[in-house]
């Protein structure tokens, strides 16, 4: 759920990520129709201009494509592109911070790996 008060992240980015998430976790498959701007406006109560900005970015990057008069669809290869983008972002957003913090706390590499394994084990 988009929650404007929740985050300093611009709303159009949140909208964009919301659609990305649905593509990455297969709720929206390639060739599927994406929610229309109006549906998103009504659902999240976010301004038309803001929603359009997020959607336009996805169109510009070839994640979504427009069919005139019908709507917006998920492009072929969209998921692959997104997963690649996100893997890159994963390093910046998570790994870099993890390594830096571990260094600060004196956690060794072996310990990090142990921690990851035990966390994964818990969730499985």
């Amino acid at each position, binding site marked *: 759920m988009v929650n404007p008060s929740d985050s300093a992240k611009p709303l159009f980015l949140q909208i964009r990520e919301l659609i990305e998430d649905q593509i990455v976790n297969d709720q929206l498959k390639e060739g599927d129709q994406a929610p229309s701007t*109006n549906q998103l406006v*009504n659902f999240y109560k976010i*301004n*038309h*201009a803001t929603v359009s*900005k997020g959607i336009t970015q996805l169109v510009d990057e070839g994640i979504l494509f427009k069919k005139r008069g019908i709507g917006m669809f998920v492009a072929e290869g969209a998921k692959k592109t997104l997963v690649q983008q996100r893997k890159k972002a994963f390093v910046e957003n998570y790994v870099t911070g993890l390594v830096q913090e571990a260094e600060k706390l004196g956690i060794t590499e072996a310990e990090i790996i142990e921690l990851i394994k035990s966390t994964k084990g818990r969730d499985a």
Partner: protein
Amino acid sequence: MAASVQLNHVTLKFKKFEALKDVSLTLEAGKIHGLIGRNGAGKTSLLSLIAAFREPTSGEVLVDGAPVFENPEKMEQVAFVYDKDYKEETEKVKKLISLASHYRPHFDTEYAKQLIKRFKLPVNKPVNKLSKGMQSALNVVIGLASRAPVTIFDEAYLGMDAPSREIFYKEILQDQEDHPRTFILSTHLVSEMDYLFDNVVIIDQGTVLLHEPYETIEAHGVSVTGAAQEVDIFTAGMKQLNEQQLGGTKSVMIYGNLGDAKRQEARAQGLEIGPVSLQDLFIHLTEEAN
């Protein structure tokens, strides 16, 4: 059907009081315009001129390029929904709807019936026996179903409960998609309605303080947060609307085009650039003007 609205150097005086001072404003056809302002700023004065309820003291008010005052052809293009006094109105709901359908050339009776169901209005009840919220809902029904090329809602939601207001907003968006027209919504519920606006007009003390597309306002209004000293250096020379400080952390609200380079510079300095709501901008812009 949508019509544009244009005000050229409009002044409106009530005896010595100037309600509007040399206002020039163009409202693009087919858009939803949000009109906001403090109490007594001149919102209703402005709207009543567009609806030809009054004549401007000087200047001109045009609907699709022609003066609207005492111009029946243009006047029927404009529907003005406001907080009407229904104390003496003993006619039934359905009678009022049918009356409206007679003098509104684009009136859609089927749509009005749908809306009445959605708002759960009792059609056979005299209007003065309805609750305040239901009277407002009736006004909203007449305004929406009028499909007038210029449809004005002046604080039309008064007394309506939250679920009814939600229906109102949804219907505006839906009907705008199916039958585009020019909406002007004046409101004090800024944070509740801002997502509806394509354009925003802020008026203050009879003048236009700001008139921008929502997009621009969203991009220009930002908060800069970080170490007080850094924030001061970064925001020096910018239009500052408000500042808050908590210990060594400061947050300054600014209005202006930052641009990508400036944003990156902020990030590099460890400053956080955050969004500002229209409500907050409105509060501090009008505060500053006073």
